[in-house]
């Protein structure tokens, strides 16, 4: 069912929701930009509609709301371990279709890759409901249509925001806290982005593609800062980290922290041996995961085309251009066969 609400009526609705849920949306984070005295749009908790920033793409994805950058897994207490409690107030996240698709990828890795279910991911993820923000224009670096991630249906409610009003679709009845006349409203989806990518067919990607010269360009350009990893809605890798809470090694804390395949040390083993020393090899590794390897396991691509990696790269490396270049060399390879 749907409702047509003025901005202030929608604000009242958010206030009602906030009694039961913590509300997260893209907001302006003042002074948190890349440079001094600049702001950035990121995900944060809101109390009212006017805090939401919808005219820009959020610099970071919403993943950190339920997959924290650093999370305590448990405490060592002498000969036993104890898992800390978390805030169990349910959460509502306002997000675009690309991110909804990205979260499906995170769900797959944490809940379906291998036989074990990730306890820490699931206990936070189960608290979350989604309100999809209709996104018809996209932004300069988006290529969600090429990735089939422009549409989503895994949400509990959706909104269309205009200057005049807000149209609200509610699929989960528990979120229907409104009286008054209902309307029919279905959100629409973007049909074309400015940026388009062509993904090479996974069967056409060969060993030669791995060894192609194009990766050398990225060895020269990438500085291994890992911003593409941290901003990506689908990057899920992490590393264990322990910290001592007593000198006798009886009390300690185990955490996990986000890790990135572009960052030094990601593949290092004890004794010093590592893989992918060159940054171009890391670019190749990430690219293949996003548009090749993941597909082979789960029949869909990992990348959802949100374009954040292009937005955040300090070296102006464009992932969409990389995909297209890769497609060109794969096509050339086929012709040469």
């Amino acid at each position, binding site marked *: 069912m749907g409702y047509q609400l003025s901005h202030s009526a929608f604000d009242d609705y958010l206030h009602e929701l906030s009694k039961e849920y913590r509300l997260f949306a893209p907001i302006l984070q003042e002074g948190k930009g890349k440079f001094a005295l600049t702001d950035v749009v990121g995900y944060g908790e809101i109390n009212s509609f006017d805090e939401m920033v919808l005219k820009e793409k959020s610099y970071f994805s919403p993943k950190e709301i339920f997959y924290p950058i650093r999370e305590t897994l448990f405490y060592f207490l002498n000969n036993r371990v104890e898992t800390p409690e978390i805030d169990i107030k349910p959460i509502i996240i306002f997000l675009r279709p690309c991110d909804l698709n990205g979260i499906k990828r995170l769900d797959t890795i944490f809940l379906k890759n291998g036989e074990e279910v990730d306890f820490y991911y699931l206990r936070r993820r189960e608290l979350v409901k989604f309100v999809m923000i209709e996104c018809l224009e996209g932004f300069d670096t988006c290529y969600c249509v090429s990735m089939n991630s422009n549409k989503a249906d895994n949400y509990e409610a959706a909104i269309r925001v205009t200057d005049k009003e807000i149209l609200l679709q509610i699929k989960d009845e528990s979120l229907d806290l409104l009286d008054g006349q209902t309307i029919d409203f279905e959100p629409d989806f973007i049909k074309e982005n400015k940026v388009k990518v062509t993904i090479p067919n996974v069967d056409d990607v060969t060993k030669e593609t791995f060894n192609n010269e194009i990766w050398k360009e990225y060895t020269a350009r990438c500085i291994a800062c890992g911003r593409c990893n941290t901003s990506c809605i689908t990057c899920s890798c*992490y590393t264990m980290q322990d910290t001592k809470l007593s000198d006798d*090694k009886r009390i300690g804390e185990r955490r996990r922290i986000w890790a990135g395949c572009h960052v030094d040390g990601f593949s290092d083993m004890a004794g010093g041996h590592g893989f992918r020393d060159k940054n171009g090899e890391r670019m190749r590794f990430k690219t293949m*995961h996003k548009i090749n390897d993941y597909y082979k396991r789960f029949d869909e691509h990992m990348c959802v085309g949100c374009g954040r990696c292009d937005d955040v790269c300090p070296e102006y490396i464009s992932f969409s251009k990389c995909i297209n270049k890769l497609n060109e060399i794969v096509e050339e390879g086929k012709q040469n066969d």
Partner: protein
Amino acid sequence: MTNPYLPTVYEILEVRKETDIDYTFKVSYEGELIGGQFMEISIPGVGEAPISICNFGEGFLEMTIRKVGRLTDQVFELTTGDTLFMRGPYGNGFDLETYKNKDVAFIAGGTGLAPVRKTIDYFSRNQNDIKNLEVLIGFKTPDDQLFVDDIKRWQENSNVTVTVDHGDETWTGETGLITKHIDKLDLSDVDNKIAVVVGPPIMMKFTTLELIKKGFKEENIWVSFERKMSCGIGKCGHCKIDETYVCLEGPVFNYIKAKTLID
């Protein structure tokens, strides 16, 4: 909801010195294990690391650990009666059925002997289960030798060659890289001979290439990979190679698969 990340405390039953930097830790353990699987071991507040199981039996398992990092430095301070935390086992391990009644050569380099030790030992003790057991082991120097007593025992009923990269004045055995000694194996029926190769990446690469040159079929070669698994359960991403997760589908791979994996 079960939490696969929680480790359990286990008692150390015995610590044996193999070399100055490799100790074998015997730990109290009940449960099913397969040679070649690994455990995630940890010390509170220090860290966690994947360590392969080199031996197991009624009520215990053993791991040979090299002192090379923050965690293993601390593990080396542990002694009989102390405890450490573990979770696992993880990985596929060496399936004995693959090698039963076959002509098999186990080829190991350095600490690569640890993950395959149990499987060699099983066949050495159960000669009726294997058509022909051969072992080729390489160490850097005589001082780096592991499982010296086990190797002596295996030599009593099998063709076991030990080579060192660099000998010293007391060394009377073979010298040179493992790849130089493939000919010491019985290659009379190489079409049906199985090889298991475990060691540092560079050793595995050149050994498998040499085996193929000598006529081994690719499908008869098995390798075991070492990677830095943070989780062991397919989530952390550290051991991923292409679409393969070493912790889930490995660490033991057939060469047909292994040769396609590009780090």
